């Protein structure tokens, strides 16, 4: 498969009154055509900031993409000017956000919001755009599309609004769909509908998908490749089966152990991760997970490990072998 997107050493910081927030700290990954990549991590781990950087949607100031490259089909998106970037956004790479209510314009009908993208990016006439919008609304499963065309966002339920967002994202047939926690605000039954919809459309349109979430369950059923982030770093990366069957980073291991499962009876106490995620204003000098890690050794507190291959397609950033508990 051909590489569609390559992110190299991406570093994003926010310059706030309290100091510099190290949101994304030199992350690299690739996305191939038609591939689904899951990025998991807790709030503040830099998962959203990393894809917003790819889309060049980081507000500057206070944000700043300090270093790195984002190569999409051979060109570095970080070198493009704003008007060139607008041709990429929506047309080549589209994004669906967590909260559809704040990302839709409340005073415009949803039909107008979808057709606008078609007129701007695809050069369609009003009439063509209207027809295509109806097709899109049908495709994402909104019943009676022609009568809903003139409705405003508040007239839709949360799940339906997220469908509108997906219709809008797919309007120009992007090659990459970035979904930033699109189902977090939804109920599980509606979440299942949306995931099912994205899977179907992905397979039909051959899009690549980057799905960001804190829910390890969603990623298990959706992604082929998984990236685990902590404090702005990628701590583990691999094929979905390797990550879940054989997690090698103490953070991934602890996270998976702390989750109760709906399909299993549990009598034991939940495993916990002590402490709190680190303050991104002042990261410790060594591994950011060291203060909470059950496998910590002296070296962890001094040197931050780099992401290294431990098995084919499986990489971790850790000094310790969790199998033996000793330094690798």
């Amino acid at each position: 498969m051909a590489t569609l997107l390559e992110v190299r050493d991406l570093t994003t910081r926010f310059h706030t009154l309290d100091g510099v927030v190290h949101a994304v700290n030199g992350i690299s990954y690739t996305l191939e055509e038609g591939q689904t990549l899951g990025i998991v991590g807790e709030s503040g781990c830099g998962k959203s900031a990393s894809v917003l950087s790819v889309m060049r949607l980081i507000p500057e100031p206070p944000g700043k993409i300090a270093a790195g490259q984002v190569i999409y089909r051979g060109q570095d998106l970080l070198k493009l000017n704003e008007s060139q970037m607008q041709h990429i956004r929506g047309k080549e790479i589209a994004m669906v956000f967590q909260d559809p209510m704040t990302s839709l314009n409340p005073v415009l009908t949803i039909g107008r919001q979808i057709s606008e993208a078609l007129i701007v990016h695809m050069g369609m006439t009003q009439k063509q755009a209207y027809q295509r919008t109806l097709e899109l609304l049908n495709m994402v499963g909104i019943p009676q599309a022609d009568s809903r065309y003139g409705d405003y966002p508040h007239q839709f339920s949360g799940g339906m609004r997220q469908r509108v967002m997906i219709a809008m994202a797919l309007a120009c047939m992007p090659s990459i769909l970035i979904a930033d926690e699109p189902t977090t605000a939804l109920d599980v039954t509606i979440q299942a509908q949306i995931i099912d919809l994205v899977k179907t459309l992905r397979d039909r349109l051959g899009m690549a998908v980057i799905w960001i979430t804190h829910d390890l369950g969603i990623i298990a059923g959706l992604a082929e490749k998984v990236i685990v982030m902590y404090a702005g770093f990628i701590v583990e990366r691999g094929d979905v089966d390797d990550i879940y069957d054989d997690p090698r980073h103490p953070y991934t291991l602890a996270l998976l152990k702390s989750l109760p499962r709906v399909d299993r009876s549990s009598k034991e106490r939940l495993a916990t991760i002590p402490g709190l995620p680190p303050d991104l204003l002042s990261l410790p000098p060594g591994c950011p997970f060291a203060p909470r890690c059950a496998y910590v050794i002296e070296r962890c507190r001094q040197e931050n490990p780099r992401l290294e291959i431990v098995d084919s397609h499986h990489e971790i950033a850790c000094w310790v072998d969790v199998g033996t508990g000793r330094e690798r």
Partner: protein
Amino acid sequence: MSDNQVLVRVEGLKKHFPITRGILIQRQVGAVRAVDGITFDIYRRETLGLVGESGCGKTTAGRTILQLYRPTAGRVFFNGVDLTGLKGNELRRMRQRMQMIFQDPYASLNPRMTIARIISEPLRVHKLATPQEQIERVQELLRLVRLNPRFINRYPHEFSGGQRQRIGIARAIASNPDFIVCDEPISALDVSIQAQVVNLLEDLQDQLGLTYLFIAHDLSMVRHICDRVAVMYLGQIVELAEKDELYDHPLHPYTQALLSAVPVPDPKVERRRNRIILEGDVPSPINPPSGCRFHTRCARAQELCSQQEPAWREVGGGHFVACHLV
């Protein structure tokens, strides 16, 4: 854990919120039937889970049980005393024994109060301690919820979400209650913090002999923490059973769909699973569907389902269900 002694008995509880029209002369034009006739017992020292989608009435049910909302109909017995008939001082005396933990640890603590004042408020309201005793009790409570007792003069903004939830828990147990309604206590917290708070709730239950009504939408966590689970849909309970019975043998089509929709953090299991995808959204509780309220989304619905409301009955071993097809 439960010794089959009923602590809370809920009988035919209803809570309807009126919809009014008109400015000077208001007249009622309808009602939101948030809770529409629920009946169950909560045994002493057990954790009863109440699950369902947003808008199904689970939070309203919790609040109505505590008489934070006065019920439209039905009764709530606490230790044999009918709460719905109580007013003023009598009700306040009972409230000392029933507390609540809220979902949002940012909105449920007054930002202008020190945590000493927040946690000691139940002690002042119920006149349980002198000022000196209050300080000692607050320190003791902070230790119980595993926070540093030296923090008593700090303000809520100085704490993380998980720590704030511990403060909310300390406040809830301050008056030595028997019964606590936990309304989505962990859903605002990060994954790695959720397990800490859940373990704390379990430890406190053992130490203090607490009884919980655990309201949540995270069905995986509910399976872990609860002894029995009740499933709500549009203001009514559709199924109730011991947790492993409910999760391994769900009888109601809604319970089956709900459980099948929960993702499992295991790719091999996910590939094999059969997901029941429900069509559409939850209907409005202002005008709920006739007969069985789930019939509009139920794949197995028959003519009877839209005409007649299914009876709430026990199918054996404490497993209750309301469905014509079971």
